[in-house]
């Protein structure tokens, strides 16, 4: 029998994350194709194993601090001892550095940005999103026990199922040089973009802070709020709490209008819950049009004022 497929179970403030459950769905498919077992690696609170019933077995090591250093050392040790066929690691802010460090310690690649993974005549081939979503690469690795960084949203979350078997494993951790001290919560006050029905999302295409007025006007006309992509947050034109995506918020508005956003996977993973998605972009090949219901391939500086006027006229 082929060696096992592993999923690194990610825990966030006392719970197994949604992405972990999605990876278990994908891991199950891959294990099925290669006739192997699916195991979850849980580094921390053993009681959380109950949420990982989608796996055949949970390898549980307690007392691993939530730092990339500790998680990587534990994972690398277990991989060396038990030689899984592959390890699926959540490609999230939480786990990407731990996965990368474990791969570096094991001298295997960390194939990342995977939205799909399948066995092709015994070799695992990942479908990876590169260049901000403009292209995709089919990638295989020449090593055993390769790590794959899998994008959130690659599959639906697996249901917990029956309580899995749990195997306690021991790991020896190096002296900690990275120590977690505390969480910093988002600043209170301001708009909660996760609760809005209408969101106007602004990207780098807006060019300057003054131009944010255009988005504010459209939001006012539609009765919604303004949010943004990473570059707009980086510039300080909107607070961190208004960022949508991988390192920002998951939003679920009825209407999401994107102005000058290219549609990088890190942004798009934040809008899975949006009902109607509209994109305005001057680049006809922008990946954002693959993630929207309606698209306008034009200059936002021409479209937005016209749109605001048309909304006002329609509403009367």
């Amino acid at each position, binding site marked *: 029998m082929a060696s096992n497929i592993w999923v690194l179970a990610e825990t966030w403030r006392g719970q197994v994350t949604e992405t972990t459950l999605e990876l278990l769905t994908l891991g199950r498919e891959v294990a099925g194709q290669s006739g192997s077992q699916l195991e979850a690696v849980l580094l921390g609170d053993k009681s959380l194993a109950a949420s990982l019933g989608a796996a055949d077995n949970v390898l549980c090591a307690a007392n691993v601090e939530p730092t990339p250093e500790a998680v990587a050392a534990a994972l690398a040790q277990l991989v060396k001892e038990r030689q899984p066929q592959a390890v699926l690691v959540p490609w999230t802010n939480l786990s990407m550095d731990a996965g990368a460090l474990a791969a570096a310690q094991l001298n295997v690649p960390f*194939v990342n940005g995977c939205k799909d993974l399948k066995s092709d005549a015994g070799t695992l081939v990942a479908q990876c999103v590169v260049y901000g979503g403009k292209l995709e690469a089919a990638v295989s690795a020449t090593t055993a026990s390769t790590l794959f960084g899998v994008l959130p949203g690659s599959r639906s979350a697996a249901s917990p199922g029956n309580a899995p078997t749990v195997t306690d494993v021991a790991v020896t951790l190096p002296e900690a040089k*990275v120590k977690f*001290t505390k969480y910093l919560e988002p600043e209170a006050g301001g708009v909660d973009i996760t609760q809005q029905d209408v969101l106007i999302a602004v990207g780098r295409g807006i060019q300057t802070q003054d131009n944010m007025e255009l988005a504010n006007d459209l939001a006012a006309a539609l009765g919604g709020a303004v949010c943004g992509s990473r570059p707009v947050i980086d510039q300080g034109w909107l607070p961190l709490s208004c960022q949508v995506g991988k390192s920002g*918020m998951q939003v679920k508005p009825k209407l999401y209008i994107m102005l000058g956003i290219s549609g990088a996977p890190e942004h798009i993973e934040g809008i899975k819950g949006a009902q109607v998605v509209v994109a305005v972009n001057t680049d006809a090949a922008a990946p954002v049009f693959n993630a929207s219901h309606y*698209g*306008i391939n034009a200059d936002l500086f021409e479209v937005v004022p*016209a749109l605001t006027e048309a909304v006002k006229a329609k509403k009367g």
Partner: protein
Amino acid sequence: MNILVLLKMVPDVVEELEVAGDGKSLDTSFLRTIINERDDHALEQAILLKERHGGKVTVVALDAPDIDDTLFATMAKGADRAVKITDAPEGMTTQMAAKLCGQVVAGLLPADLVLTGVQALDDLDGLSAALVAQQLNFPYIGVVTAVTAGGPTATVLKEFAGGVRGEFAVTLPAVLGVQAAEKPPRYVPVAKVRAVMKTNKIETVSAPGDAGAAQIEVRQLAKPVVSSHAEMLEGSPEEAAGKLVELLAQRGLL
């Protein structure tokens, strides 16, 4: 503080990207490359730290088209030295490039911090920061958005999701994968870059021998096959806006 910053040139994804005839790589004939956006933040964070604590910032990059302009710009912004790694083999994977960079960085030590961008947008088998940290036996953490130094440890913020950040105490020397600097990367006028070109030199180092072998194989590179594409609203901006408003009204969204 002595800070080393790793920089990489990547394709500008606002441009059209074409796949080469082999079906596995990028057609580089008309490719426009720019500094990886996250690396600009790594550089900014390094310069901010230098301004607060004194010290030196050294930028290290593999040779690439347009790299000289980028390196001169980093010096115009405040980097003290720029080191270009020449004669590296073609077609290296991220892992191989990181092996070379790590060896060059080892030769530039001591340093308190090695900063990289958290990720490059052409990366398929990274992340370089972790690979370099492993070679140097330095601690590493990624997705960093703030660094406070001034002792044997640095206080580092890592961005999780939902606006939550974690604070970590990191023993120096360390490698950090930077997501965003504390301030937007500074702008530098072309005139200043030109002036720096006259006074400063880019140092070159020949690539050290061993990059190892590729451990990944790209079987195909292609435009995404999509399950859905937006319905495009055509016409003048006014016409397209009008059509959208009608559609939104029909769906009860106005």
